[in-house]
């Protein structure tokens, strides 16, 4: 079995999991929730195995071009999806809020589909600038941060949906969605996970740039956008300490932060030019 087939399998399993999670919400069936989460775990195992297999495959290619599968847009989107599922599963293990999955898993599924349909899955050798251990540290930390922000965004959307629904139908209480307080706390928690990772990601990126190019910060669009994302989430975290910035406003700020994150990740590569151009292929 090749890694490409395994990636397809993982995508399919995530799709089934998403349908099951949607059914959990629609049918208000808690027992189905356990089946859904087991499905997500299956998809995650296949996904992890596929990443490992792709890593191995790269070493089997002629010309000694083996490297960690984190070097181009296709590989990073796949890793992004993997990180989202990882963060979701960790939160699920600790808090057992099944319904959250119905909003989070679609993010991972979307990323996987996009990678399968639009990505270039050829394993290519690394250009000299990427031949560094910093590649792994930098990409892993950044994407764990991004993934936590994706979870925060999903939870914020849930918050807004639930808030709008309970405003129109106050009697409709048992919809299996966590309460507004829990969602608000989850949003905060996700960003508290993501923020140190983003900080570490920017730090490792700066260290690597200093090592490769002799400058740790050059106001390149990618660097600047990562700082913009950092500013937004720093504002989010400080806003929590002031009165009146939890709930709806916090949810909107979290969504804004994730939009900036997506632009930092994809928009900069696809629309602007700069040092991270190899991420665009």
């Amino acid at each position: 079995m090749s890694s490409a087939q395994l990636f397809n399998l993982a995508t399919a399993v995530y799709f089934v999991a998403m349908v099951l999670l949607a059914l959990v919400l629609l049918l208000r069936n808690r027992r189905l929730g356990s089946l859904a989460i087991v499905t997500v775990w299956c998809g995650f195992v296949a996904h992890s195995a596929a990443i490992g297999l792709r890593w191995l495959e790269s070493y089997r290619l002629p010309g000694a071009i083996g490297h960690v599968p984190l070097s181009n847009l296709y590989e990073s989107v796949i890793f992004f999806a993997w990180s989202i599922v990882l963060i979701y599963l960790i939160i699920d293990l600790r808090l057992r809020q099944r319904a959250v999955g119905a909003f989070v898993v679609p993010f991972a599924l979307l990323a996987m589909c996009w990678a399968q349909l639009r990505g270039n899955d050829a394993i290519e050798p690394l250009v000299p600038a990427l031949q560094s251990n910093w590649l792994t540290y930098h990409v892993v930390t950044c994407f764990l941060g991004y993934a936590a922000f994706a979870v925060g965004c999903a939870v914020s959307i849930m918050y807004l949906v639930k808030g709008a629904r309970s405003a129109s139908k106050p009697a409709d209480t048992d919809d299996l969605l966590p309460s507004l307080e829990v969602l608000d706390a989850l949003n905060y928690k996700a960003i508290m996970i993501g923020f140190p990772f983003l900080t570490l990601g920017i730090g490792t990126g700066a260290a690597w740039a200093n090592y490769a190019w002799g400058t740790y910060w050059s106001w390149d669009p990618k660097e600047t956008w990562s700082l913009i994302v950092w500013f937004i989430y720093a504002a989010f975290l400080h806003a929590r300490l002031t009165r009146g910035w939890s709930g709806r406003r916090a949810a909107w700020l979290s969504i804004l932060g994730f939009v900036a994150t997506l632009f930092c990740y994809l928009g900069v590569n696809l629309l602007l030019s700069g040092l991270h151009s190899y991420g665009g292929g």
Partner: protein
Amino acid sequence: MPAKPRPLRILRDFLCSLKLTVATLLLLAATSILGTVIPQNLSSLQYRQHYGDKAQLLQGLHLDDMYHSVWFLALSGLFVINLVACSLRRLPAVWRSVSRPPLVADGALLRSLSHKATLQAACSVDEAAIRLQPLLRRRFAGPRRTIGPEQEVCLFAERRRYARFGAYVTHLAILFIILGALIGSWFGFDSFVSIVEGDTVTQLPASEGQAPVELGFGLRCDDFSVSYYEGSARPREYRSLLTVIEEGQEVAGYTRVPVVVNRPLQYRGLTFYQSSYGLAQMPLFHLQVRMPDGAEVQMAGRPGQLLPLADGGSLQVVDYTPAFRDLGGAALIEVLTADGQRLPAIAAMQELPVDENHASPYRLQLLRVDERYYTGLQVTRAPGVPLVWLGCLLLVLGSLGAFSLAHQRLWLTIRPTAGGCEVQMAGSSHRNRPAFAGTFDRLGQELAAELEANNHSAKEDRS
């Protein structure tokens, strides 16, 4: 303390406010976008070509170098002042509460605490205190014992009190990073030098309006090479071999040091990074030519140079590719025959198929190409960098600590009752209260069990 005059107090409250923090952070985020959309540091002419009449406005607002503009630096300055003011204002109170915690839980404190429980025991106050202290030490933290105003016994225990400082560590870290950046821009420099293979440089070229910088030593480029991945034009490695020379002598340990991307050379506070390369001069092509009469001659020439042949014809190298199909390097030659015909021909490293050069009267082969490269090195002295790394490290540790560590405190007040004593338990956690609720409940059960066991043993003693 005398009240400060109003305007000063308003200014202080403004600079210390969290609303200002949120506003400057969001403003910094919003304005930073401009510099990623507008290309930075182009010439006036390029801006006019890009933006026409708007170029002047754009340059007037310093949007052509916005991250160093007065207004952006002022906004960053406001951010720093706010950060320092906030920290200085809040830190003393935090310090006080950590260094001199309230050992006795009085009424006001108790009312502010969300986690409370009361246990009854049949033993005396002293006995309860003696039994509970080791348990607390084992399961929570070593308690401090004091006597309250009404002669009640108070036990106070806390853990991870340093967690209170996480946020201030991140603030300090940001100051370190900014200080490191300032030190870098005051005392550091970066430059670029290109060295032709075989040459030695002793100074760095001057930047605009300044004298060249003396290195104080010599740096020689012994060799530069590019290697490619097999069967592709994708570069695998750019490699310079560099040698440091002090007073005419090669320095031991610094001879023929390979410098590649991601592996710079450091010497006497300077760092040299592999940055670019190029041809120092036109390459020299060595050709073997077999004349129509079977005689073979060897000749060498650079592109554009006319190479005359014995029969009155001539050759000229026009172009070169390092990979021609799968035949290795090949040169495109313009052949001028004795009777004035101009023909294109190919000279390759390997034997060509016969039909390639059928028109040419001469059979050509490329023996070798002498290329003399120069290597382009980025040179920096960055004295602020260690401080920046320290700042980054503290920023990560501080934010991890601020979010994941909670300062937990526990107060036990033991009072005598008619049947023995009453233990009032109260606790607080400065973050993650749901998790602390679990800890608090478990601890309450364990304390109760301990007192219960005490009860039993006391009863047994009596019987």
